[in-house]
C-alpha cells in the first residue's frame, strides 16, 4: 500500500501548476498559437509528385505568383514525394489551378496531382474560432453542472478548475512547439475535457464513500488516504490511454499525429491536475467555505 504525503506538500504542487499555467499563458501571449487555415482562412494544397522535388524549387516557382506569406513543407515519407503548400490569401479564386500550371511548366517531373485542397474564407475561419472557444466553455459549464448534480457544488469547482488547467497547458504546449492548432486539436481539447475529468470523478466518488466511514479523521488526512487508495487505478487508467495516444503521436501523420500530441499532453496534465488541483481545491472550499459564508451571515 502506497502512502505518499500528497496533501502535506500540496502547496508546492499547486505552485508547480500555477507556474505551468502561467507559462502556458505567457507562451500563448508571446509566441501566439499557430492557427491552421481552419481558423485563419487561407488555402492548403497537398501535392504528390512522381519524382523528388526540392522545397526551394517550389518556392522559386511560387514567388512570382504573389501569394503573400506562404510555406512549403514536405509531408509524409520522403519516398512519397508529397509537398504541402499553405498560404493565407485574399478572395482570389482559381489560384490552385494557377499554381498547378506553374509547377507543371517549371518542374521537370512526369506527373503531379493535387491530393487535397482546402480553402477557408477569412470570415468562415473567424466564425469557427469563435465557435471553438464557445464549445470549450460550454463543455466546462456542462461538466460543472454534471459534477455539481452528481456530487455537490463544493466538489464541482475543483474539477472544473482542473479542466481549465488541462486545456490551458495543452494549448501552451502547442504554443511552445509551434504545432498547428486545427479543428482536430479542438476535438482533442473537448475529448480531454470529457476524459480528464474521469479520474477526478473516481477520486471524488471514493472521497464521498469515505466521508461517513472516516468521520473522525481530519479532512486533509482523509483526502490523502483516498488519493493513495485510488492512486494505482488513476495511474493505470491513464497509462492505457497514454499507450494509445503516444502511439498515435509516434506513428500517425499530420492531423492524426497532432491529435495524439494534444491527447498526450492533456492526459498527463489531466492526471496531475486531478491529484494536485482538484483535490486541494476541494479542501480549500471545504475548510474556508464555511468561514466565508459565516462571515457573510454575520454582516
Amino acid at each position, binding site marked *: 500500500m502506497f502512502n505518499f504525503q500528497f496533501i502535506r506538500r500540496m502547496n508546492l504542487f499547486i505552485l508547480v501548476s500555477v507556474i505551468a499555467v502561467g507559462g502556458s499563458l505567457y507562451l500563448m501571449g508571446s509566441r501566439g498559437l499557430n492557427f491552421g487555415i481552419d481558423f485563419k482562412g487561407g488555402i492548403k494544397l497537398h501535392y504528390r509528385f512522381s519524382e523528388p522535388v526540392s522545397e526551394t524549387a517550389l518556392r522559386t516557382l511560387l514567388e512570382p505568383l504573389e501569394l503573400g506569406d506562404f510555406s512549403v513543407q514536405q509531408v509524409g515519407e520522403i519516398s512519397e514525394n508529397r509537398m504541402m503548400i499553405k498560404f493565407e490569401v485574399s478572395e482570389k479564386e482559381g489560384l490552385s489551378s494557377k499554381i498547378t500550371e506553374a509547377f507543371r511548366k517549371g518542374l521537370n517531373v512526369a506527373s503531379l*496531382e493535387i491530393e487535397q485542397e482546402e*480553402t477557408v474564407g477569412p470570415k468562415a475561419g473567424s466564425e469557427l474560432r469563435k465557435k471553438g472557444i464557445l464549445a470549450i466553455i460550454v463543455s466546462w459549464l456542462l461538466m460543472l453542472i454534471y459534477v455539481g448534480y452528481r456530487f455537490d457544488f463544493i466538489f464541482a469547482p475543483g474539477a472544473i478548475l482542473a479542466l481549465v488547467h488541462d486545456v490551458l497547458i495543452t494549448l501552451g504546449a502547442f504554443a511552445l512547439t509551434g504545432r498547428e492548432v486545427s*479543428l*482536430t486539436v*479542438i476535438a482533442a481539447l473537448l475529448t480531454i475535457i470529457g476524459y480528464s475529468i474521469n479520474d477526478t470523478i473516481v477520486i471524488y466518488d471514493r472521497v464521498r464513500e469515505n466521508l461517513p466511514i472516516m468521520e473522525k479523521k481530519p479532512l486533509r488526512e482523509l483526502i490523502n488516504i483516498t488519493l493513495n487508495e485510488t492512486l494505482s487505478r488513476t495511474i493505470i487508467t491513464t497509462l492505457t490511454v497514454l499507450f494509445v495516444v503516444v502511439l*498515435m503521436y509516434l506513428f*500517425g501523420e499530420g492531423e492524426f499525429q497532432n491529435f495524439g500530441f494534444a491527447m498526450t499532453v492533456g492526459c498527463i496534465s489531466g492526471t496531475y491536475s486531478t491529484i494536485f488541483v482538484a483535490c486541494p481545491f476541494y479542501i480549500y472550499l471545504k475548510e474556508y467555505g464555511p468561514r466565508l459564508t459565516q462571515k457573510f451571515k454575520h454582516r
Partner: protein
Amino acid sequence: MILLSVYFLVPTIGHFENVRTLAQEKETPLPFYVYLFPPDEIKLGLDLQGGIYVELEVQVEEALKNKADLLSSDLERLLKKEPFAPEKIERNPDNSEILITPKEGQSHEEISHWIRKNYNETLIEAGGQNGEKRLVYHLTKSFEDQTRNYAVQQALETIRNRIDRYGVSEPTIVRLGGNKISVELPGMTDPDRALNLIKKSGKLEFKLVDESVADDTVRGWVAETRNESNLTEDYSEQSIAKINEKLKERLPVESEILFEIQRDPLTKKIVGGTPYLLKRKAEVTGEMLKNAQVNINNNEPYVSLSFNSIGTRLFADLTKNHVGKRLAILLDDNVASAPVIREPILSGEAQITLGLGDYQTLLREADDLTLVLREGALPAKLKELTKTVVGASLGKDTIQRGMKVMLMASLVVIIFMITYYKLSGLLADIALILNILFVLAALAIFQATLTMPGIAGLVLTIGMAVDANILIFERMREELRHGHSGRSAIEAGYHNATRAILDSNITTFLAGIVLYQFGTGPIRGFAVTLMIGIVSTLVTALWVTRVLQDGILYGLKKESISV
C-alpha cells in the same frame, strides 16, 4: 450479439460494393451470398474516400436587388395606366431602393396613396415627402427577410436539381443556417467541373446592341480607360464595373459595356475580350425558356433553345422590330455571341454556339450548359466560403496508416492487461475485442460516417475502454486484500465501481455531444465514433466481463479469482 455484429460487418470486409459494380459491369447476376447480408458497408467520410466539400454563401443582397428590379418594372407597367402616372421610375443600382419622380406639377400624394394601398406588404416609403421631388421606396423588413429566405431555399433546390441531373452518388446538400449552404460530393473525380456546375448562375438574357456608338469607338474607350486607371487586362466582374463607372459620362444612360470573352481552344485560358455596348434592359430572359438541348451540326455541338408562349411572342416582336440590328445572347453577364437579326424569328427558337475547341470538350460544355439552363438560374450568386477537395488515393493511405496504429494500440493494451491482471486481464481483452467489433458494426448499422478523426476516435476507444475494467479489477483487488472471498469480491467490485464508471463515461459522452454540435463533417465523425465507443464500452465492461468472470467462477467451480 457477436454474430449479429459480424453479420453486419461482412459487407465491409468483403467489399461488396466492388463485387456489385463488377457484376454490373460484366452484366452477370450478383453472387447469391450478397443477398444474404445487409446492403450497406461502413460509410466512409469525404476525407477517406475522396470528394468535394464546399460551403457556399448565397449573396442575398443581390436577390433583393433583383426583386426590386422586378417590382419597379411592375410599378412602371401598372402606374402607366393611372391618371397620376409618374414622370419616371428608377432603381438605385447600389441597393434595393426604388425612386419615383412625379410629373411636373403633380403632388406626391396620389402616388404614395396608391402604393400604400397596393404594395403595403412589400414597399415602405423612406423620405421624399417634404419638398423633395422624388419619392424613395425601400422593401419592407418582412418582405426583405422573406426574399432572403426564399433566395437561399431556391438556391438549395436549384443546386440539388443540377447535381441530381449530373449524377453524383449520395450527394449531401444542406442549408447551414443563415445564408449558407453546404454541398458534399463524395467520390468526385473532376472537382472543377462540378464546382462550375454548382456555381454557374445560369442567367440567360437577350439584349440589344446599342448601335449609336461605333464598335471601334467603344473599343478605343475601353483601352483608354484601362490605360488611364491602370486596370489589368482581365474581365472580372469588378473590372467591368470599374470600366463602366469611369465611362459613365460618355455612355448613353440606358446602356453599359459587357464583354465577349475569347478563350484559347486548348487550354481554355482567357486570351482576350471584345467589348459590346448593350442596352441595360433584357428583352427576353431564361425564365421564358421552355427547353434547351444539345444539337450537333457539322461536328460542332451547339445548344438550341425554345421559348414558352410569352417568350415566343416577345422574341417575335423583338426580332420583327429590329431586323438588321444585332442581338446579344448573354450567359451570366458575358456575351456568348451577338448575331445580326436577319429576319423575324417567329418560331420561338434560338441557338447558342460554343466557340472553338475540341469536340469532346465542347460537347461536355454544351451538356453542362443545357443542364444549367433547364434547371433554371440561381436566385443570386454564390460565394465560396470554404472548400475541401480530397483525392481518393490519399484516403486509402490514411486508412492504412490508421489501421496500423490501431493494431499496434490494441496489441500494447492487450499485452499490458494480461501481464498486469492475469486471467481477468484476458477477459477484459476479450471484452475489448468485442468492443471494437460492436463499434464497427454500429457504424455500419446506423450508416454513421467513418472519417479520419473517426479512426482516431476508434483508436482512443481502445485505450479508454479498458478503463472501466481497470476500475473494477482494482476494486476487486482491494476487496480481496480485505479478506473477502472471490465471489463477494466480484460482487463488491462491480457494485462499487459501477457508479464512478457511469459518471465518468457520461462526462465523456457529454463532451462528445458538444463536439458533435460544434463540428462539421470529419469532426462529427470523431464525435460519433467516440459516443458509440462509450456506449459499447459500458455494455462490454459492465456486462460481458461480468458474465465471463461469473462463468469461470461458477462453471469451473473455482473459489479464487485471478486479478
